[in-house]
């Protein structure tokens, strides 16, 4: 019995069940909701959230209240940079990806140095960085939408690539495999869990916690920059606040996926399920053809119910 409860409390299982229930509900409400091409469409949206959540996941795993609130501004930055580098030219896609990812990585490293060297709390550091980037975006784009996606990039994100599946989903799958491999099969991956769960012990065993954590923030920026490229590929153009909508959902996807905000425990597999569940939930609510306000209220309430299932903190004991 205890074992059964243990299994039922597994965040991965809860998220997977939530996905199935939502798919079933969607199909009931609007037949055809769970059709193959619809699911591919949903997964495309989930991929954009999932890629930025990969970086968020790393930062959260690294512990010491790790969180990256600057990802939204970095996504916008990545989208604006990529859009201007490409400006509709297929040949410039790879340089655009490199520029966006590189800019994101640099921003992340600055975040990481602020958190580890200056020891600014992550929430404050990344919040401050968000303000700086928003200003930088105004300077960069002079406040008007600028740059546009190359046709090949838009096709890669939106159109079937191989087996009817868009290219972005292959990218996401590759990131998933890479994340799982790095987290579970490399010394770097295990050192993330080590500094996240017990930093003192990790430092005493000789791990350079500061350097590892700085890299994690760098990677979060890198993933956010890449997400920016995906966003401009998805919508075709960019504006300077295009990434704002991803900030807190990226944290929620991580939490719903079973990664503890205290750090040191969780997996990217869970975050993937969390991202899919979030996108599905929004999609089901859209299908309900309710007014915007009631969709919002139900969305928030569902998040609270999900928290009830496993987001609770330890009870205080004497």
């Amino acid at each position, binding site marked *: 019995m205890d074992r059964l409860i243990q299994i039922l409390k597994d965040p991965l299982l809860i998220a997977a069940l939530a996905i199935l229930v939502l798919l079933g509900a969607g199909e009931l409400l609007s037949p055809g909701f769970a059709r193959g091409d619809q699911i591919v469409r949903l997964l495309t949206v989930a991929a954009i959230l999932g890629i930025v959540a990969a970086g968020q996941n790393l930062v959260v795993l690294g512990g010491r209240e790790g969180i990256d609130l600057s990802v939204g501004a970095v996504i916008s930055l990545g989208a604006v940079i990529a859009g201007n580098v490409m400006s509709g030219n297929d040949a410039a896609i790879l340089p655009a990806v490199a520029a966006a990812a590189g800019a994101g990585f640099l921003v992340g490293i600055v975040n990481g140095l602020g958190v580890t060297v200056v020891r600014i709390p992550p*929430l404050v550091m990344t919040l401050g960085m*968000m*303000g*700086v980037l*928003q200003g930088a975006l105004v*300077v960069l784009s002079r406040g008007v939408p600028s740059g546009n996606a190359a046709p090949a990039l838009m096709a890669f994100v939106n159109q079937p690539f191989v087996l009817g599946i868009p290219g972005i989903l292959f990218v996401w799958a590759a990131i998933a495999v890479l994340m799982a491999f790095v987290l579970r099969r490399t010394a770097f991956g295990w050192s993330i869990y080590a500094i996240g769960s017990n930093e003192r012990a990790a430092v005493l065993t000789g791990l350079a916690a500061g350097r590892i954590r700085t890299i994690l923030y760098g990677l979060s920026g890198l993933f956010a920059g890449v997400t920016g490229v995906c966003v401009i590929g998805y919508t075709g153009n960019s504006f300077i606040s295009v990434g704002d909508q991803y900030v807190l959902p990226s944290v929620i996807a991580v939490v719903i996926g079973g990664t503890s905000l205290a750090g040191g425990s969780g997996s990217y597999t869970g975050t993937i399920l969390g991202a899919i569940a979030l996108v599905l939930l929004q999609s089901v609510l859209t299908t309900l053809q309710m*007014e915007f*306000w009631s969709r919002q209220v139900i969305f928030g309430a569902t998040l609270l119910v999900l928290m009830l299932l496993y987001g*609770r903190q330890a009870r205080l004991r*004497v």
Partner: protein
Amino acid sequence: MATLLDGRLWLITLTALLVLVGVNAALQPNFLEPSVLQSNLTTFLPLVLVAIGQTYVVLAGDIDLSVGAVVALVNVTTVSVIAALGGDSQSVLAGLAAGIGVGIACGLVNGFFVAVLRFQPIVTTFATSIVFAGLALRILPDAGLPVPEAYWRGYAGGLFGVPTVVLVLAAALVTIAVVGRRPFFTRLRAVGGQRTAAFQTGLSVGRLRIAAYVLSAVFAALASLCLTGETASGDPLMGQTLALSSISAVVLGGTALAGGVGGPFGSLLGALVLGMIGNVIFFAGLPFEYQTLVQGLIVLAALAGGVLVARR
């Protein structure tokens, strides 16, 4: 120096504020005229109030990301109640009371989820903010619904020659002082500093955390009523940036996000500093497109500087 600053990190914030006031007065010759000061205070007051409330939550080791949505929900409630009751002076009072009541309810909801059900504060208050914002859109789908003249004239005017905004600020200061002298305040800091120890000494940790969330939401409600006096109408999207700005103000005021250290007076100064930074940049004659960037850099530097000083 070290002993003087011990527990008085707001002195640094105060110094920064005075420097900013000096710079602003130099850049903007009429800055110290009463009418200009009053209009500046009118602009800064909502953030000041929200930041004061946020401080209590942060002191208890939690965080409240829902204050912006509370501002919106209180605003639409107040203007709707006033409109429904006909718009005379009694209906204005009823609207104000309804707004505060909604604030208290929001705080209780946040406190219940975080302190009783033990949900993670960041995610929880984000989720409740989605719900509150949704309800605000239900009550008033589009911006509009002007408030009666008595309301905004009263807010822009004053009582016995003292501007209303100054009275509100004074009332906030008195509240800070009164709350700060109660055992509640010490207990709250104990809860944020060492939660387990606080629990073991017999403090009702849950009730204290709920009280902090209620205080935060009530201050957000007051901020909303002030904003309503300024804009004189309803707006379901009001106050969206206030949650994150209030956290910056709290940190600038020397309160540790880890909880337990600091106080609302510092946050009040921090909010004024944030507002003054914007002012100074505006009057420094920078090209318009660089203003946000410079402001972001200064705020980030100030946040980093504050943390460095606090660590000492």
